[in-house]
């Protein structure tokens, strides 16, 4: 289809925005390209590499922006409102494929066996450091939240106590709402204006990162700082959020930072761990960091490893598992020992995670076989409620992306949610007549309000507390601590509040709110069960609260294996493994029938080119020919510098990988594929001016080493910052030493699932499609594969869009 005449070319803003310190891509979608006036088929950089075979008239490879020929010429940019069926151009792939060029071989020859052993030791040292630092960050968050939230609740409680006697409770309400809103405002401002990628729980982002998508800024030090502060502020601000999810993101950032031995944000290079400055190595450490984060959050080291395995690692390595487990263990142990010292009983080691579900004793809270069908039914309820939660959140998120995209609006929205959360809590407490006698010190901030002296309002234990404490209260308060009405109202209100809160521009997780909703309705369920059966199934409602929490969380996030193990480890009771597994399975099956999991949904709404485990099942009839992008921009083996610079600086085609073909096709008639070179490599070459002519001029010139490429990683300078004089433009550049001489290729006839499998299993970024003469026909990149999705009506194709 050489319909070259009607070429419409769009230019993208350079999506490599992590190369600049400018604002994130969301805010500045530029449209440099024009309508039909754009020169059709104008890519003339590589005249000598024009392949005159059939439909390929010029060569234009791309990774992100495609030159598109349309059957129906569209004179104007086709603008549509944001929807789920888009793939954003903002996201790039990570380079997991090792470029086995000559430099690499030289280095491998130079480094002897012993040096590789020290590399292995360094890996373990890094994992230990990841664990320790993640644990310390978790401690910091926990301690600060505890103190600030304690301060806030004491102030409000004193105020309420004062005004209960004298009248004027509306002032207490105002005080509470204002305190919440102002704390959340600070938290939201830093997220919205400084680092938007720190919003939310960070689990979708880490999932994408481990899948091989480079999310701009996601593993920066700045993100970590904003994330930690943001979490503290949003939990203190009384939102319906938890601090557990963000721990995973924090762990990942810590891992990425330590393994590189430097911080580009701080402009400090410690000159250590230089060997690990590659996407492949960094990805391994990031999965260790995510595991350490889970482990610190829930005190679940095995759960953390499995989380990395289930949610994250698309590319898993057997040796990695043990190292990740090591990092997880270190993390939970660090948290445990530091918190024990903080709580004054050192060596006690009683707080392995940020949230402790508390002890579930077998005697008191054991279950019988007869209860298992009941648990499965709870799983069904959890699945339905989870699906409802996700569906509501889907509409809300869509609305937010479309209409509330300005940072100030986002801040205002967060403040409003905080104020409303306080108001709802206050009204619920005010209206509740459920008074319970104070029993010891289980209630942190007992509010008496209209209860008799010596009693407290039991609605206040649920609303007037940090969500973590409320969860534990629901699990462990003795039977009769809550009346059904209280629990029902609480579930209803908290469901909507949590749903409304998730997706705000604050850093906060959804784990704890889900657990809390589930625990509330689970407890309600337990109470009504013993009521309905006239006490014949007398059981501790705490057990049902736990199952409800598992069901609700499973229904929302749809994790299976890792969540089962996390819950098991958090309760410290292995016998609960079986019912929890059943509950989570049921919840997932039922929930998947309606909508997909919350994290997958958000990944989709962010238009991330995410590759799932397998290609869509009905896609075998598609071949690489239809999937690939074409034409491809190729480079010759010995290329003119001017051409290279022009290709790289062409804003309309932000390609990242270029097939290298034989320099002189006329002699052999075939311009066969010789290798693949990356944009980043070309930029380093240009920066060091590795030109053929210069090599001849000065023989003493230092040879380029692999280290030069690593030093530039991960923020390669943009092409605009490299100055090439007119004379130099005429020089030639020899790529054969630097290109990857054996890129993966597929024939045109390969089916989509086959291509997908190769791409996914090896973590590729570029896959060259060649014909039977080894000539480059097209290029398959992540977005070409991620486009195909199994929708409701069969195979769907997503559109690419500028975001």
């Amino acid at each position, binding site marked *: 289809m050489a319909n070259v005449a009607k070429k419409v070319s769009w230019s993208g803003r350079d999506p490599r925005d992590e190369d600049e310190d400018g604002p994130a891509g969301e805010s500045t979608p530029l449209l440099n390209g024009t309508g039909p006036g754009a020169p059709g088929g104008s890519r003339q950089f590589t005249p000598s590499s024009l392949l005159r075979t059939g439909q390929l008239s010029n060569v234009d490879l791309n990774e992100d922006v495609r030159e598109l020929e349309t059957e129906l010429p*569209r004179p104007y940019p086709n603008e549509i*409102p944001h929807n789920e069926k888009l793939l954003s*151009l903002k996201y790039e792939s990570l380079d997991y494929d090792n470029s086995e060029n000559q430099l690499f071989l030289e280095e491998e020859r130079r480094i002897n066996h012993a040096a590789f052993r020290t590399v292995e030791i360094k890996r373990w040292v890094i994992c230990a450091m990841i664990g320790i630092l993640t644990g310390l960050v978790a401690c910091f968050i926990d301690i600060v939240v505890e103190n600030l939230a304690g301060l806030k609740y004491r102030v409000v409680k004193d105020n309420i106590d004062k005004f209960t006697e004298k009248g004027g409770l509306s002032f207490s309400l105002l005080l509470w*709402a204002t305190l919440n809103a102002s704390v959340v405002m600070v938290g939201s401002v830093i997220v919205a204006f400084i680092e938007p990628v720190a919003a939310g729980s960070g689990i979708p982002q880490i999932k994408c990162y481990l899948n091989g998508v480079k999310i701009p800024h996601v593993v920066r030090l700045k993100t970590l700082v904003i994330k930690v502060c943001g979490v503290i502020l949003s939990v203190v601000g009384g939102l319906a959020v938890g601090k557990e999810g963000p721990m995973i993101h924090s762990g990942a950032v810590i891992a990425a930072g330590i393994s590189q031995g430097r911080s580009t944000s701080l402009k400090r290079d410690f000159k250590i761990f230089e060997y690990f400055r590659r996407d492949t190595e960094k990805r391994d450490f990031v999965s260790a960091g995510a595991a350490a984060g889970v482990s610190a959050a829930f005190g679940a080291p095995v759960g953390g490893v499995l989380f990395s395995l289930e949610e994250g690692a698309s590319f898993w390595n057997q040796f990695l598992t043990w190292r990740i487990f090591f990092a997880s263990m270190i993390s939970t142990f660090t948290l445990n020992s530091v918190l024990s010292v903080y709580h004054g009983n050192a060596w006690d080691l009683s707080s392995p995670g940020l949230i402790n579900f508390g002890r579930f004793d077998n005697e008191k809270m054991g279950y019988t076989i007869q209860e298992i069908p009941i648990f499965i039914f709870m799983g069904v309820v959890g699945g339905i409620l989870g699906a409802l939660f996700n569906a509501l959140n889907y509409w809300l998120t869509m609305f937010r992306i479309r209409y509330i995209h300005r940072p100030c609006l986002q801040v205002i*929205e967060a403040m409003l949610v905080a104020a409303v959360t306080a108001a709802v809590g206050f009204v619920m407490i005010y209206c509740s007549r459920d008074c319970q006698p104070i029993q010891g010190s289980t209630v942190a901030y007992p509010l008496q309000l209209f209860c008799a002296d010596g009693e407290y309002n039991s609605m206040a234990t649920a609303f007037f507390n940090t969500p973590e404490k409320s969860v534990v209260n629901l699990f462990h308060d003795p039977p009769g601590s809550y009346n059904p009405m209280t629990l029902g109202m609480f579930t209803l209100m908290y469901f909507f509040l949590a749903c409304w809160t998730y997706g705000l521009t604050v850093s906060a997780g959804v784990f704890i709110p889900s657990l809390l909703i589930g625990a509330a309705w689970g407890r309600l369920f337990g109470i009504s069960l013993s009521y309905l059966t006239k006490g014949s199934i007398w059981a501790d409602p705490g057990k049902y609260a736990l199952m409800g929490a598992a069901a609700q969380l499973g229904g929302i996030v749809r994790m299976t294996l890792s969540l089962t193990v996390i819950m098991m480890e958090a309760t410290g009771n292995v016998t609960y493994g079986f019912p929890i597994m059943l509950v989570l399975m049921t919840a997932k099956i039922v929930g998947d029938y309606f909508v997909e999991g919350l994290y997958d949904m958000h990944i989709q709404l962010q238009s991330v080119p995410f590759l799932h485990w397998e290609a869509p099942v009905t896609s075998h009839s598609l071949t690489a020919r*239809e999937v690939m992008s*074409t034409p491809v921009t190729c480079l010759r083996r010995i290329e003119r510098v001017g051409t290279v610079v022009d290709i790289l600086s062409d804003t309309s085609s932000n390609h990242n990988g270029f097939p290298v073909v034989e320099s002189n096709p006329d002699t052999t008639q075939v311009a066969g594929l010789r290798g693949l070179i990356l944009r980043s490599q070309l930029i380093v070459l240009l920066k060091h001016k590795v030109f053929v002519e210069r090599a001849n001029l000065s023989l003493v010139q230092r040879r380029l080493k692999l280290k030069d490429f690593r030093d530039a990683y991960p923020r390669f300078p943009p092409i605009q910052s490299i100055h090439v004089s007119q004379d130099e433009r005429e020089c030639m550049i020899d790529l054969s030493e630097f290109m990857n001489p054996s890129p993966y290729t597929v024939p045109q006839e390969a089916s989509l699932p086959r291509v997908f499998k190769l791409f996914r299993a090896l973590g590729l970024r570029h896959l060259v499609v060649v014909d039977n003469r080894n000539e480059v026909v097209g290029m398959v990149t992540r977005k070409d594969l991620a486009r195909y999705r199994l929708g409701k*009506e069969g195979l769907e*194709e997503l559109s690419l869009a500028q975001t």
Partner: protein
Amino acid sequence: MAPPPGFHLLLLLLLVLLLPPGPAAGLQALGEAAEMAAGLRAGLPELELELPGLELPELEPPELEPECRRLLAAFAEGSAALSGCLARRARPVRLCQACRGQYRSLLGRYRDIARALGNSSESHNCAKSILTSDRLQIVVTLSEFFNETWETANCANCLKNNSEGLSNSTVEFLDLFNKSLTCFEHNLQGQAVDVSSNNYTDVCKNCNGTYKMLNDLYNNLQKLNRHGSESGHSAHLCIDVEDAMNITRKLWSRTFNCSVPCSDTVPVIAVSSFILFLPVVFYLSSFLHSKQKKRILILPKRIQSNASLVNIQEKYS
């Protein structure tokens, strides 16, 4: 809600029951305990004589030394005294005040059995034969039960460090408690004459000061206690004090209905509905005024007009 006739009478009865074991009662109890202990010691030989009578005398194996038997009997007597005292003082709870003498003496007897006393080899035998020579180990179980009860009641909290007597704060509290109960009683007596009026305004008015003082003192004690034990585990006061306060509070706010908090529902509803109204305004205005974010579509260009692509489109429609 009008209390049923005869309710006042009941109430008075309750108060009468409540009153006698005041702080003075504690001192009395100490005396009682000492007496009882002396009596026990005096009565020991008799008991010892009684014991063989319970079993088959001739078949009794000569296992237990007479000295050991004496110790066992002392323990039995002590535990009987203590359990009797605990049960008698169960409602209203006066355990710590009334039974601390018995508890202490029982502790001593148990220690006598367990620990070397005088002739070490012999008493060691005693400990072995009484405490650990059978499966049931009833003496150990009993003593554990009493210890546990004592701990749960948290009696150590209102006794002096050497558990000789009530601590100063407790004495102060019980004083105040008695005072407020007396106050309640006085005012109720005045009212009991005209049963027709069911409100307790007099009580509320007259005893407000005492009650407030009592309440404040209790809260202070609680606060001190919480500070004292950093870990927050044993933040309980001792059961006597807790129970006394509970009873008073219940009388005050349930029976007398004295603490009527001002409820200002109207302003609360106004403020909260104002806050709840804000998001609606916000979302509406951003829906109407904010420019909807548009995405610029980039149509993919690849080789088309293939059968399988038609396939896709068919599936679409």
